[in-house]
């Protein structure tokens, strides 16, 4: 039974330890004196009385201990005591402590960095009020295509939702970042600068709960009449950069695309926007100002112009599922009022996170994979420290055994030892956290650099890699777990009940402690296995990078431009306009060739392919292949040569005739040993089970179309669907820069109606380079991983083996004294040391093979990434290199100390240590 008084009294006793101790001692001394007095009264001598008194009391020290235990919070006292001892013990052996902390810091730091990145991307809430109640709308298309446009809705759709969705307290819309030319203060003398802004609904800031840092934000009625409210809100970063944080900027005029906007406010520094991409917008304007931002487009009234992201705040008490059902119905109902080529199958609500689509299964799988690998690194670090603790524990064996012989319970001693391990791991964790913070900063700088190079110098990276409470909790839990993991088995080992032999002088493994050395062999074996796994993964990845530097897409990229333009809403007129432009482009002297069709490396389309085959059971063979639309000039524009057969005729290209050109790999896969020209196959183009039949008319060379990492396993090209818009591919002659300038000036004069919507992307710098960056980042990752694994494995294996051998000094001395030759002794010791290493390597190899098989299975889809860039997963060079490294380390680790041991004078070795 407890009551508040007793709790308070215990606190007081813990606080005033010295005073309480003195009081208790005084009381017990007085008790003793009184008993003595009584005995003397009964006739015993002074000396006899004293002894009898002690016996009656039951021992002064025991009484004192009983008093003490009842007086304070026992567990608290014991824990504090353990902590004090642990600190002292760790400080007494600084070498061991430093190495252990460094090892743990590496393992924990690496995991924390990864978690920080994951946190920044997927877990941290958006910088809006009550972010848990804000959701993003996502739609599922009939074509199952995935990407950013799954989050795109049109303004009429948004209005429909805003007015009819009862489960949302507020619905806001925001466009994607739009490139603008702005002149601060309307200074026509200086050149306009490039900036990017977003069009947002009037209730954007209000609905999200963002107030202005200075000035004010939009009100809902500033979004009503098109073009009526030329006002802009600046982001904090932009305001600092362009206006040098001048509070007088409010009310000034900012010229955007030639129109005068009034600056009405600046958002707080913490608001980094709500966009799906990690960029802080420079400014916001009401959607009503769309014509000024993007002339030539009619987003406000076009239901098929999917240009806005829609976010909503749920009504209090409404569950997401409920709102999702209603939203789905509303959007699909509205969709019946207009025609579109790709139907919406469903609308889902997603919790908001910094980057969109973090619930995507691929992202999650990739993340889980990376975390697993990094966790392995931590495990290796733990194994290292466990071994070190075991080694150190051997030295403390006597102390522990004496303690237990004196009556300490096993639990108490284990708790004491675990306190030491947890303290060590917390220290390692703190150091690891420091490492992770530094790494986070570096990562931020690196990502910022990469993105600036791609998107322009005004890019500000919006993700925040600094640790928040989630990261701290993660580190703490990780430390606790690792402390217990690596501390438990040495603790259990040292406190084994075999007290008699451990109390003796026997500190070597000479006929004693067999299970301890077995445990150590197991640890070495395990460590080698995990290191093997890590090293092989890292090694393969590094080899993959070496390959990727020379990865050639197979088609021309430097002088090829991707063009998209809007030719208007009327399909018939648009088609005429489109072909007229193609003709005009083809006639320009700087244009070598122009074709249209599917753009490379921008998403993959992998329909099912069915081929009639007499040899198989069902009479037909099935598979997956990449598919692309291709006009008659398409292959030529991309510079993909035709190996056999013929190209499409202009008539076939215009009519969409079902003929196809297949890649060489497709021919090899589906018609091995035959001539595919003239053969037929069927494709399930829309993933709805309906098959369209094509006949093969030509074979093209293999290229890397889907991504840079692998040559397309199968690819078919066929004439474009006349009802769909296609991107245009323009191949320029001569120097790309000057040809591009000439082309632009030509376009300016060509058709002013289409001009504003024309967008040109260079294949190399805009499309392919992103892939190269991906490979370079992966390689950097692999390099770090390899380095870490090497270091940890090297230290771990060397340290433990050296210690194990040094423990056998007595045995070696004895053997030499009995007449063995040094060579034989060294050889036998080295061989014994190698056994667990070899076992570990075998397990590691098996694990690596399993992992590679897993990786290999992901390559089944023609469009998926191959992280190894075609390096075979059983690559002999890598495996050989790593195996030799590990064997070498182990041999050296056992040779050096054993050679040293045989040199020692046997008499010395046998002597009492």
């Amino acid at each position, binding site marked *: 039974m407890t009551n508040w008084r*007793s709790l308070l009294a215990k606190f007081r006793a813990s606080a005033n330890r010295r005073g309480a101790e003195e009081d208790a001692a005084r009381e017990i001394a007085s008790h003793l004196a009184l008993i003595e007095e009584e005995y003397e009264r009964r006739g015993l001598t002074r000396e006899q009385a004293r002894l009898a008194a002690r016996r009656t009391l039951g021992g002064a020290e025991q009484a004192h201990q*009983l008093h003490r235990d009842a007086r304070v919070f026992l567990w608290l006292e014991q824990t504090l005591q353990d902590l004090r001892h642990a600190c002292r013990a760790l400080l007494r052996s600084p070498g061991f402590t430093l190495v252990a902390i460094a090892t743990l810091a590496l393992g924990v730091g690496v995991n924390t960095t990864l978690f920080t990145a994951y946190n920044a991307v997927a877990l941290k809430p958006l910088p809006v009020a009550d972010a848990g109640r804000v959701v993003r709308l996502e739609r599922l298309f009939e074509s199952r295509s995935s990407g950013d446009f799954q989050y795109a809705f049109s303004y009429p759709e948004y209005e429909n939702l805003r007015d009819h969705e009862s489960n949302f307290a507020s619905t806001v819309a925001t466009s994607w970042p739009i490139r603008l030319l702005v002149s601060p203060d309307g200074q026509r003398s200086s050149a306009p600068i490039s900036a990017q802004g977003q069009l947002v609904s009037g209730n954007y800031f209000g609905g999200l709960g963002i107030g202005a840092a200075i000035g004010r934000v939009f009100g809902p009625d500033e979004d009503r009449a098109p073009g009526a409210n030329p006002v802009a809100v600046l982001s904090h970063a932009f305001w600092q950069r362009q206006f040098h944080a001048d509070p007088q900027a409010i009310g000034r005029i900012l010229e955007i695309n030639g129109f005068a906007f009034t600056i009405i406010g600046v958002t707080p520094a913490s608001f980094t926007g709500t966009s799906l991409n990690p960029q802080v917008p420079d400014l916001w304007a009401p959607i009503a100002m769309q014509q000024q931002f993007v002339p030539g487009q009619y987003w406000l009234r076009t239901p098929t112009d999917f240009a806005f992201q829609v976010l909503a705040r749920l009504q209090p008490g409404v569950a997401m599922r409920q709102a999702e059902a209603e939203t789905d119905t509303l959007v699909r109902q509205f969709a019946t009022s207009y025609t579109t080529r790709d139907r919406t199958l469903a609308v889902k609500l997603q919790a908001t996170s910094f980057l969109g689509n973090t619930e995507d299964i691929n992202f999650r799988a990739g993340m889980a994979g990376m975390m697993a690998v990094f966790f392995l690194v931590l495990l290796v670090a733990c194994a290292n420290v466990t071994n070190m603790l075991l080694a150190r524990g051997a030295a403390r064996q006597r102390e522990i055994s004496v303690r237990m012989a004196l009556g300490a319970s096993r639990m108490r001693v284990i708790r004491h030892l675990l306190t030491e391990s947890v303290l060590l791991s917390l220290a390692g964790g703190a150091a690891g956290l420091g490492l992770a913070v530094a790494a986070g900063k570096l990562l931020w700088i690196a990502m910022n650099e990469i993105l600036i190079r791609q998107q322009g110098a005004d890019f500000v990276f919006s993700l925040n890699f600094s640790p928040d409470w989630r990261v701290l909790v993660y580190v703490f839990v990780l430390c606790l777990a690792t402390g217990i993991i690596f501390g438990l088995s040495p603790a259990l080992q040292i406190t084994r009940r075999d007290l008699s032999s451990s109390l003796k002088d026997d500190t070597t493994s000479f006929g004693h402690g067999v299970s301890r050395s077995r445990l150590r062999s197991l640890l070495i074996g395990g460590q080698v296995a995990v290191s093997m796994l890590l090293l092989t993964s890292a090694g393969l990845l590094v080899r993959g990078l070496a390959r990727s530097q020379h990865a050639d897409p197979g088609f021309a990229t430097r002088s090829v431009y991707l063009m998209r333009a809007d030719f208007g809403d009327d399909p018939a007129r648009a088609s005429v306009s489109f072909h007229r432009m193609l003709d005009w482009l083809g006639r320009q002297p700087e244009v070598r060739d122009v074709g249209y069709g599917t753009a490379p490396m921008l998403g993959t389309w992998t329909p099912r392919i069915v081929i009639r085959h007499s040899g198989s059971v069902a009479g037909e063979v099935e598979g997956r292949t990449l598919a692309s639309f291709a006009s008659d000039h398409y292959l030529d524009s991309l510079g993909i040569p035709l190996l056999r057969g013929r190209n499409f005729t202009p008539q076939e290209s215009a009519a969409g005739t079902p003929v196809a050109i297949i890649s060489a790999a497709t021919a090899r896969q589906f018609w091995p040993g035959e001539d595919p020209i003239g053969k037929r196959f069927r494709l399930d183009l829309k993933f709805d089970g309906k098959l369209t039949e094509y006949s093969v008319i030509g074979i093209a060379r293999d290229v890397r179309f889907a991504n840079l990492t692998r040559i397309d396993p199968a690819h078919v090209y066929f004439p474009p669907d006349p009802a769909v818009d296609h991107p245009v591919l323009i191949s320029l002659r001569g120097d790309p820069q000057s040809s591009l300038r000439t082309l632009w000036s030509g376009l300016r004069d060509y058709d002013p109606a289409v001009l504003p919507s024309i967008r040109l992307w260079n294949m190399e710098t805009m499309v392919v380079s992103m892939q190269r960056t991906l490979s370079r980042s992966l390689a950097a990752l692999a390099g770090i991983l390899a380095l870490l694994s090497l270091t940890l494995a090297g230290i771990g294996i060397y340290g433990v083996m050296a210690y194990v051998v040094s423990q056998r000094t007595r045995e070696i001395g004895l053997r030499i004294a009995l007449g063995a030759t040094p060579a034989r002794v060294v050889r036998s010791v080295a061989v014994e040391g190698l056994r667990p290493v070899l076992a570990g390597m075998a397990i590691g190899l098996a694990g690596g093979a399993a992992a590679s098989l897993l990786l290999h299975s992901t390559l089944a889809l023609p469009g998926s990434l191959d992280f190894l860039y075609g390096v075979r997963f059983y690559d002999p060079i890598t495996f050989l290199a790593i195996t030799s490294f590990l064997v070498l380390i182990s041999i050296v680790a056992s040779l050096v100390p054993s050679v040293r041991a045989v040199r020692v004078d046997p008499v010395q070795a046998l002597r009492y240590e």
Partner: protein
Amino acid sequence: MKKTSIPILQGTLDLMILRTLATMGPQHAYGIAARLEQVSGDLLNLNQGTIYPALVRLEQYGWTKGSWERTESNREAKFYAITRAGEKALEDETGRWRQMSALVEKVLGEEPQS
């Protein structure tokens, strides 16, 4: 002669100490222990030091209050006196003990079914 000792339940030792203090007035640890030994006719065979957890507990609950006084032989000792809260607790605990022991007696005293 071997003395058998009755193991003491934690709560009952508290009860006996409170009762002792209530009847004998303020006592020091030795006095309480000696009195318990005497009353039990040496059956209790307390290792006298084991009284301290109970004494500490009682003082922490506020059922006793300790103060340093001098004995008749002018030795200093910490005397424990029962407090008002202690008297109330004694009453409650005694009642509970009597209730429980009566119940146990009743069950034990039942005639075996023949």
